[in-house]
């Protein structure tokens, strides 16, 4: 223990110190074990507390309209976070998700508007392109054994450049889409649900998370994704074809990015090659705040959904409270650091 001359400790050193240590370890230990079992509880608690706090600060916050507005705002990044989660669960990271999304939205828009391809086919081609970008990332990671960070740093730039090339840096305007390809804006359409105004993009985000939750917890594929992220060598020795699992993860992630692309057209209302420039980092933020470990194999897929909502709640709450935008960034920054610190602490558990 410390050698500071604390009078209380000095008088009765062994007893006081020992008792204190024992007590605190018991409670903390229980919390640590609880969070280890239910890693999503951290973001859930943060979300509930922040909703309550902002609700108390500004009465407008708590309206169904405002809450549904938050959902609309996080729909695109939330969907992208689902794609990001898969890769991070395998102890990777995908810096290219945002660029893939924007590039695919350009492909969908260009094919429909400039090339006159029927919109459903354009969307299908866009989804295939999403899978292809994932296949490229996956092949570089599994065949050339490049670190995912470097691989996707490279492909991020490549896809961004292709995006500018394909689009000519030109935006396809909202009116053009309305006239020639209204289906591309489908996920931006609104509907009422008991005072709340939701978009189909919100439903898409929830659907993507629901499907992933099922796949990760109730299929062999999902268990293998966790095993590969947890300890790839152990998984390989246990008979898992780790490269195949990784490849499938990157490809599924690419398809989800393409779905997010479709959703983003509805959200923005146009096809803009310069939109969502920070989407990749925002998706990582949602995943990390959602309690998925950057070291792989740990965390619930529902965490990033909550993580995205937390960021949305902070942004909306701080704006309604009339706080400068810079404090939204400030708050998000601390949330990331705290989330990772908690993850490190939980991971220390063993036997």
């Amino acid at each position, binding site marked *: 223990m410390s050698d500071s001359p604390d009078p209380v400790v000095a008088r009765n050193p062994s007893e006081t110190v020992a008792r204190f240590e024992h007590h605190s370890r018991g409670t903390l230990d229980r919390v640590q074990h609880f969070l280890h079992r239910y890693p999503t509880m951290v973001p859930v608690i943060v979300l509930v507390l922040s909703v309550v706090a902002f609700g108390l600060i500004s009465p407008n916050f708590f309206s169904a309209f405002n809450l549904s507005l938050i959902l609309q705002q996080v729909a695109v990044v939330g969907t992208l976070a689902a794609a990001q989660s898969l890769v991070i669960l395998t102890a990777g990271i995908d810096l290219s998700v945002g660029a893939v999304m924007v590039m695919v939205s350009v492909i969908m828009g260009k094919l429909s508007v400039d090339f006159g391809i029927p919109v459903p086919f354009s969307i299908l081609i866009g989804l295939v392109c999403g899978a292809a970008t994932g296949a490229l990332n996956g092949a570089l990671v599994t065949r050339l054994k490049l670190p995912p960070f470097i691989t996707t740093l490279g492909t991020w730039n490549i896809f961004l450049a292709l995006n500018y090339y394909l689009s000519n840096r030109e935006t396809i305007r909202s009116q053009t889409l309305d006239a020639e390809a209204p289906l591309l804006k489908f996920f931006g359409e609104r509907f009422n649900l008991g005072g709340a105004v939701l978009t189909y993009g919100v439903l898409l985000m929830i659907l993507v998370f629901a499907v992933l939750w099922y796949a990760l917890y109730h299929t062999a594929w999902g268990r293998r994704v966790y095993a590969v992220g947890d300890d790839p060598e*152990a998984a390989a020795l246990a008979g898992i074809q780790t490269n195949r699992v990784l490849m499938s993860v990157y490809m599924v992630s690419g398809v989800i990015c393409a779905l997010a692309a479709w959703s983003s057209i509805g959200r923005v209302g146009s096809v803009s090659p310069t939109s969502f420039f920070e989407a990749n980092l925002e998706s990582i933020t949602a995943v990390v705040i959602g309690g998925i470990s950057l070291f792989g194999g740990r965390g619930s897929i529902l965490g990033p959904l909550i993580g995205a909502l937390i960021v949305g709640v902070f942004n909306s709450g701080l704006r309604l409270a009339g706080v400068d935008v810079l404090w939204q960034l400030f708050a998000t920054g601390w949330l990331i650091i705290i989330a990772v610190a908690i993850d490190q602490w939980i991971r220390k558990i063993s036997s």
Partner: protein
Amino acid sequence: MTQPLLSARNLVKRYGRVTAMDHADFDLYPGEILAVIGDNGAGKSSLIKAISGAVQPDEGEIRLDGQPVSFASPLEARRAGIETVYQTLALSPALSISDNMFMGREIKRDGIMGKWFGMLDKPAMDAFSRQKLSELGLMTIQNINQPVETLSGGQRQGVAVARAAAFGSRVIILDEPTAALGVKESRRVLDLILDVRSRGIPIVLISHNMPHVFEVADRIHIHRLGRRLCVINPKEHTMSDAVAYMTGARVPEGVAA
């Protein structure tokens, strides 16, 4: 004597100019515990890897039940009924005992959910895992869904051995199973090994721990300089004999120097 269940003849494996296996032979008989010992670099791990499918020998022949076999991967050896418990155990720490038991050979549900949606039959997998663990006297583990990382070293070894015993119908290979364990936990693992043999499954035990080897092994295969030097009966030789043969300090009878 009866026919060996698993045998190898003249295995050769070269890595560039290094010869890891130099015409190595190997025989495992039904129902026995065969210990494989040898100095570091003697090539015992290459031998074991060849048998478990992790390494493909350049020359030589492996026979299982008298039939020539060649394993392109550990997966193929596993399908043939040869299970290996690696020193690292090959368990995923964050996954549950049940998940680990079935890693790579999960059971799906009957009907549409299993066939079309790939839904796992978790109740069946949990029940099977629980049964296998209790068969090996490992029921101190209460919760089959607890993550493996919350188990002690001995319990983890137990799970890995139980996994091998549950699926390894023909042969189980154990690589240094007691190396990382304390005295008490080693004891339990040795009992576990004897228990597996009593159920008729032969075991290949690789170990540096002479007291453990001499306690459980029926025969001891001594590997030296990339090949089998000799096979001794632990009842007729002492530990210092074995160490002397292993290191080349002495040459066993009937072996040409």
